[in-house]
C-alpha cells in the first residue's frame, strides 16, 4: 500500500495525534451537550431509593430508635438500623486506614451527620419524608472538637478501642498513648535533628494550622446496587475513584465471591479524593438490594457530602528550622497533631498513616530532619483524604514553604534567595532525602530563575517597598504581597514493595486489543473523573503503536472488562497506568515487528519502527504500516506467530515520580475590608514529558483555583458543640469565574528517568504548590509590619483581624 506518496514524515506524525500535541478532549462532545452518564442518571426497573437519618449531635448515646411511623408510611419498603446489620456483621466496616467505622450508629454517634438509620422507599421523596418520621432518642455526651483537648480528656470517644481492663490495645499503626489517640508515626533522626537545631546559630519556629476543608466535587457521592438473586451477581454502580479496590473490599466484607461482583464507575463529576473511600451509603445500598432483590439507589445531597464524606487536611504543624548565618539550612523538625475525626478513615497507603508527609523537606537539601505525626480522634466527621494532592503532600509542602518564609523573616533575607541557596542541585539527582525518599530528577535552579525573570521579581520588590512607603504616608490603604512557592510533589503511588492499600498492591494496568482494520481499544485499571484519560492515554498509545489516537477507544471503570488496577487519585494515573499503557503498547509493537519482517521478507532485526509503520532499515520505501500489520495479524497465516494483536501490562513502578514547579502570586490587599485582589499569578510546572499541553494547562487552572479556594476561604468549620457551620455552598467557598484571576502558565521539561515515557503527572501539582503561594502572598503583604505567620483560610475577616492586630487601622 503506497497510497501516502508525497506525505511527509511530519504530516504522518501530525495525523497520529500522539504525545505532545494539543488534542481536543474527546470526552467533551458528550459533557458539553449534557450527555454524560452519571450515577444519578442510572435508572433501573423497580429501583428503590435510600436516604439516611443522620445525627444532629456530635457526640451522643442512642437510647432508642423508633421506626414504626416510617414503616407505616405508604411506599416505605424497609428501615435498616445497626441491629439489622449486626447479624450480617455489617454494622461496622473496615476503613482504608486499618480502623473500623460504624456503618449505622451502633449505640452512639461520634459526629454530626453520622448515619443512624437507612430508609428504603419507592421514591426519593417518600424516603425523605420517612426520614422525618424516625424518632431517635439521644443522650448527649461531652463534645470534643479540639485534638489537643481530646488528648487530655477523660471522655472516651471510642469505647470499642479500650479493653475491658481499661488498657489500650495497639492500633493499626502501633501503640496508643491515650484513649483518644490513634497512632504516632515517626520518620527521620530525632536525636540528631534535635542536636543540630539546639546548636544552630539561626533557628526559626512556627506553629501553623492547616484547616479542615473538603474536596467538594460538583457531583456528590452515590451508588446504585443491584443484586440479581437468580444468578447471584451483584452489580454496583458508583462514584468510585478505585472501582477494583471497591470490588475487592465489597467481596471481603460481604462474603460474595469476587467474580460475582461487578463494579462500574460511570462518568464521574470530579473526585479530588472525595470518592476514594468506602462510605456507609454503599454498604447500606448493597444490603438493601440483597434484602429486597431490586436495585437501590443512594445519592448524597450537597450538605451530606460536605458534612460526612471525606474531609481533607486538619493538621496542626509545629516546626523548627535551623540554618547557618549564611542561610544554608541544617535541620528541620516537624511535629503534627492530626485531627482524624470519629473514625480513622484516611485514604493513605497502609504503611503511611500520615501519607507522604515525610516529603516535608521539600525542594531543599536539608541534611537532617525529623517528623512525628500523632493521629487523634475528635467528634468530627471521618476522612482525611488527599484533596487534589498525593497523600498529605499539600500539608507537607505548605509546611516547608511557610517555614522557608519564616526563616527568611528570622534572617532578614529575601525568601527567593533563601530558596535558591538551599535547592537540591541538578547534579544531586537521584537525591536521597533525609526523610527517606529518592527524588528521581529535577532542575530547580533553572525553573526558579525562569520564574523570577518572567515576573521581574526585583521590580516587584521595588514596587512593594514603594507601596509600603505610600501606605505609611497615607497615600494608599492597599498593601501588596508577593507570594513565592517552589514545590516538589511525590506522586505515582506506587511501588508495590512499600505501597499498598489494605494489602492491595498499588500497581496499575492496561490491556490493548488491536482490531483487524487498524483501530484499537485499550482498557485501564484507572478511572477518569475529568482528567481526560480517553484523550491522553490514546495519545500515549498513538505514539507507541503508530495508530491514530482518533482510532483508539479508551475504556475504564468496569471491573468485568478492565484489568485490575488501583484507580485514579494521588496523580497516579499517568505515572502508573500511563506507564502500563506505554509498556503494553511496546508489547504490541514487538509482535508487529515480527509480522512486518515476515511480510517484508526480511529478518526481524532488519526492520525498524517509524511513526506509523515498520520500514526496512536503509530502504524506507519498503514498509508496512501498522494498519496493514494489524490486518495481517488476524487474517494471514504467519508461521510461528499466533493470530491476533493484543497485549496486557501490569506496571509496578520502580519509584515515585517527583514533579515540581515554581509559582509566584502578586496580590493587593485592602487592609480595611480584608478583600484580596490577585493581580498576577505565574505558574511554571515541570511534569516531565508533556502528553497534552492543553490538558496540562486545564489541570493547572483547575488545581490553582482549588488552591485559591482553600487559601482564601474554603473550610469545614465546627462550633464548640460540634455543629458544622459550613454545610452549604453559601458558606463553603467554591470559587466561580468571578473570583478566579488570569493564570499565566509556563513549563520546563525534566523527564522522569525511570518512567517509560518520562512523564510525572500534573493534576495535583497546581493545588500542592498553589496553596502556599496564595498564603505566602497574604503573609508577605504584612511582613513589613512585623507579621511572621497568620493561619489560613485568609478570608476577609481574618485578614482584617491580622491588620487590626498589627495596628493598621489607626
Amino acid at each position, binding site marked *: 500500500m503506497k497510497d501516502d506518496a508525497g506525505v511527509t514524515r511530519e504530516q504522518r506524525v501530525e495525523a497520529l495525534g500522539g504525545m505532545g500535541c494539543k488534542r481536543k478532549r474527546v470526552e467533551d462532545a458528550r459533557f458539553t451537550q449534557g450527555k454524560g452518564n452519571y450515577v444519578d442518571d442510572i435508572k433501573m426497573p423497580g429501583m428503590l431509593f435510600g436516604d439516611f437519618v443522620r445525627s444532629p449531635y456530635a457526640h451522643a448515646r442512642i437510647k432508642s430508635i423508633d421506626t414504626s411511623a416510617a414503616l407505616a408510611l405508604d411506599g416505605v419498603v424497609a428501615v435498616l438500623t445497626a441491629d439489622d446489620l449486626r447479624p450480617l456483621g455489617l454494622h461496622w466496616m473496615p476503613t482504608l486506614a486499618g480502623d473500623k467505622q460504624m456503618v449505622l450508629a451502633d449505640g452512639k454517634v461520634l459526629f454530626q451527620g453520622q448515619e443512624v438509620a437507612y430508609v428504603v422507599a419507592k421514591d*426519593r421523596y417518600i424516603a425523605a419524608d420517612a426520614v422525618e418520621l424516625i424518632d431517635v432518642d439521644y443522650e448527649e455526651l461531652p463534645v470534643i472538637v479540639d485534638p489537643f483537648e481530646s488528648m487530655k480528656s477523660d471522655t472516651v470517644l471510642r469505647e470499642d478501642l479500650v479493653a475491658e481492663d481499661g488498657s489500650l490495645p495497639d492500633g493499626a499503626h502501633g501503640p496508643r498513648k491515650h484513649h483518644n489517640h490513634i497512632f504516632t508515626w515517626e520518620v527521620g533522626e530525632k536525636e540528631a535533628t534535635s542536636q543540630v537545631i539546639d546548636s544552630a546559630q539561626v533557628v526559626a519556629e512556627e506553629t501553623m494550622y492547616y484547616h479542615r476543608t473538603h474536596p467538594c466535587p460538583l457531583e456528590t457521592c452515590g451508588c446504585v446496587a443491584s443484586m440479581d438473586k437468580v444468578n447471584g451477581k451483584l452489580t454496583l454502580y458508583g462514584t468510585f475513584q478505585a472501582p477494583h479496590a471497591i470490588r475487592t473490599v465489597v467481596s471481603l466484607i460481604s462474603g460474595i465471591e469476587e467474580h460475582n461482583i461487578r463494579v462500574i464507575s460511570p462518568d464521574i463529576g470530579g473526585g479530588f479524593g472525595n470518592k476514594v473511600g468506602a462510605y456507609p451509603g454503599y454498604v447500606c445500598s448493597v444490603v438493601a438490594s440483597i434484602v429486597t432483590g431490586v436495585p437501590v439507589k443512594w445519592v448524597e445531597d450537597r450538605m451530606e457530602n460536605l458534612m460526612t464524606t471525606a474531609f481533607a487536611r486538619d493538621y496542626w504543624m509545629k516546626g523548627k528550622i535551623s540554618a547557618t548565618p549564611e542561610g544554608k539550612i541544617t535541620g528541620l523538625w516537624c511535629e503534627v497533631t492530626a485531627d482524624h475525626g470519629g473514625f480513622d478513615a484516611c485514604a493513605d497507603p497502609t504503611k503511611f498513616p500520615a501519607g507522604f508527609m515525610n516529603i516535608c523537606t521539600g525542594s531543599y537539601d536539608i541534611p537532617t530532619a525529623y517528623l512525628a505525626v500523632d493521629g487523634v480522634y475528635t467528634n468530627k466527621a471521618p476522612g482525611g483524604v488527599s484533596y487534589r494532592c498525593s497523600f498529605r503532600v499539600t500539608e507537607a509542602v505548605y509546611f516547608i514553604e511557610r517555614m522557608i518564609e519564616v526563616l527568611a523573616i528570622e534572617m532578614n533575607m529575601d525568601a527567593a534567595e533563601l530558596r535558591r541557596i538551599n535547592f537540591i542541585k541538578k547534579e544531586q539527582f537521584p537525591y536521597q532525602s533525609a526523610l527517606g525518599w529518592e527524588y528521581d530528577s529535577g532542575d530547580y535552579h533553572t525553573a526558579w530563575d525562569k520564574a523570577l525573570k518572567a515576573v521581574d521579581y526585583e521590580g516587584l520588590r521595588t514596587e512593594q517597598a514603594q507601596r509600603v512607603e505610600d501606605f505609611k504616608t497615607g497615600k494608599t490603604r492597599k498593601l501588596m504581597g508577593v507570594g513565592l512557592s517552589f514545590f516538589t510533589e511525590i506522586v505515582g503511588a506506587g511501588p508495590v514493595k512499600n505501597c499498598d492499600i489494605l494489602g492491595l498492591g498499588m500497581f496499575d494496568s492496561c490491556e490493548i486489543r488491536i482490531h483487524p482494520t487498524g483501530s484499537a481499544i485499550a482498557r485501564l485499571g484507572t478511572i477518569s473523573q475529568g482528567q481526560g484519560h480517553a484523550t491522553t492515554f490514546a495519545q500515549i498509545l498513538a505514539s507507541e503503536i503508530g495508530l491514530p489516537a482518533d482510532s483508539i477507544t479508551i475504556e475504564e471503570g468496569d471491573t468485568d472488562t478492565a484489568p485490575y488496577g488501583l484507580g485514579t487519585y494521588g496523580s497516579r494515573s499517568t505515572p502508573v497506568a500511563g506507564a502500563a499503557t506505554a509498556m503494553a503498547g511496546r508489547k504490541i509493537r514487538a509482535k508487529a515487528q515480527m509480522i512486518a519482517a515476515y511480510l517484508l521478507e526480511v529478518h526481524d532485526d532488519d526492520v525498524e519502527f517509524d511513526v506509523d509503520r515498520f520500514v526496512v532499515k536503509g530502504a524506507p520505501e519498503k514498509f508496512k504500516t501498522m494498519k496493514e500489520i494489524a490486518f495481517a495479524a488476524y487474517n494471514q497465516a504467519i508461521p510461528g506467530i499466533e493470530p491476533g494483536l493484543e497485549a496486557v501490562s501490569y506496571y509496578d513502578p520502580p519509584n515515585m515520580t517527583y514533579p515540581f514547579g515554581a509559582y509566584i502570586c502578586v496580590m493587593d490587599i485592602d487592609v480595611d475590608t480584608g478583600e484580596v485582589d490577585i493581580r498576577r499569578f505565574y505558574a511554571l510546572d515541570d511534569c516531565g514529558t508533556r502528553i497534552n499541553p492543553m490538558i496540562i494547562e486545564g489541570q493547572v487552572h483547575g488545581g490553582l483555583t482549588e488552591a485559591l479556594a482553600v487559601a482564601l476561604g474554603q473550610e469545614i468549620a465546627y462550633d464548640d458543640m460540634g455543629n458544622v457551620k459550613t454545610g452549604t455552598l*453559601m458558606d463553603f467557598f467554591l470559587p466561580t469565574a468571578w*473570583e478566579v484571576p488570569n493564570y499565566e502558565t509556563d513549563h520546563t521539561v525534566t523527564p522522569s528517568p525511570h518512567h517509560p515515557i518520562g512523564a510525572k503527572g500534573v493534576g495535583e501539582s497546581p493545588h500542592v504548590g498553589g496553596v502556599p503561594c496564595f498564603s505566602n502572598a497574604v503573609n508577605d503583604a504584612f511582613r513589613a509590619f512585623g507579621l511572621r505567620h497568620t493561619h489560613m483560610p485568609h478570608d*476577609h475577616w481574618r485578614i482584617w483581624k491580622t491588620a487590626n492586630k498589627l495596628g493598621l487601622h489607626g
Partner: protein
Amino acid sequence: MIPAAFEYYRPKDMEGVLAVLTEHGDDARVLAGGHSLIPMMKLRMAEVPHLIDLQDVAGLGGISVSDGTVRLGAMVTQSDIIADAVLADAAPIMREASLQIADPQVRYMGTVGGNVANGDPGNDMPGLMQCLDATFTLIGPDGEREVAARDFYESAYMTAREDDEVLTAVSFKVPEGGYAYQKQKRKIGDYATAAAAVQIVKEGGTCARASIAMTNLSDTPVYSEAAGAALVGTSVTDSDIDAAVQAMLGDIDPAEDNRGPVEFKRHAAAVILRRAIARAWSRA
C-alpha cells in the same frame, strides 16, 4: 434537600391567587422567582403545603417611569432591571445594585417583589427601597393598600404583609442627585457582609438631602435617618462623612456569622458607607 409534599397552583389572575390564600391562610405561600423560598423548602425549614406560582398571573410585570414616579411590577426580575435603559436613566442605583445581586442565572429568575416581600435581611432590595423611600402595593381580600418600605420590615422574615396579601408592585419617586450601592461580599452569590445604599442631592456645593440605608447589618434593613441628616447642610468633608458613619453605627445591630464577628462587621459597615457616600457625592 428534598422538600415535603405540597400542592402546586398556577392561577392566571390575582383572584385565583387570593382564593387559595384565603382558603389556606398561612399554609399557602406565593412563589415568585423562588430563590429564597425553594431552598428553604428543600431544607425543610419552610413547610408550604400550598404553593402558588405567580408566573402566569397577568399584570405583575412591567417597568414604567411616568410623572416622576418609577413603578416596578412584583415579577420584574433583576435581569429586567439591568436591561431597562429608561430605568437605568431614571434610577441608576437600581441597575448598580442589581448587578451586585448573586449571578446572572439567579438574576434571570430573582424578582423585585420576592426580594422585598420575603423579609430576608440579607436581600439587597429592601435596604435600597428604604433608601429610595419606596412604597409597596399589597392586595388582599379587602382590596389594595400601600405600605412605605420604611415601615414594612418588623424582624427577620416578619413584615407588615398579612398572610392573605400579595405584594404586587413597588414604586418610588425618580431619585435625584448622586447615588451609590456599595456592597462587600465574600464571593459571587453571597449575601452582603455589609452594604450601603446612598442617594445625595447637592445644591451649591452643599448637601441638600441625603438618604442612607444599610443591608444585612441587623435583622431588618436599616434606614438610618440620622446618618442622612448628619450630611445635610455640610459640604461632605471627611469629618462630615465620619459623623454620618457614626450615626449609622448607632442604628445597626449586626450578628456574628461566618462572614465574621460583630466587631468586623461594624468596621466593614463603616468602610462601605464611607466609600458609598464618597462615590455618591462625586456623582451628585
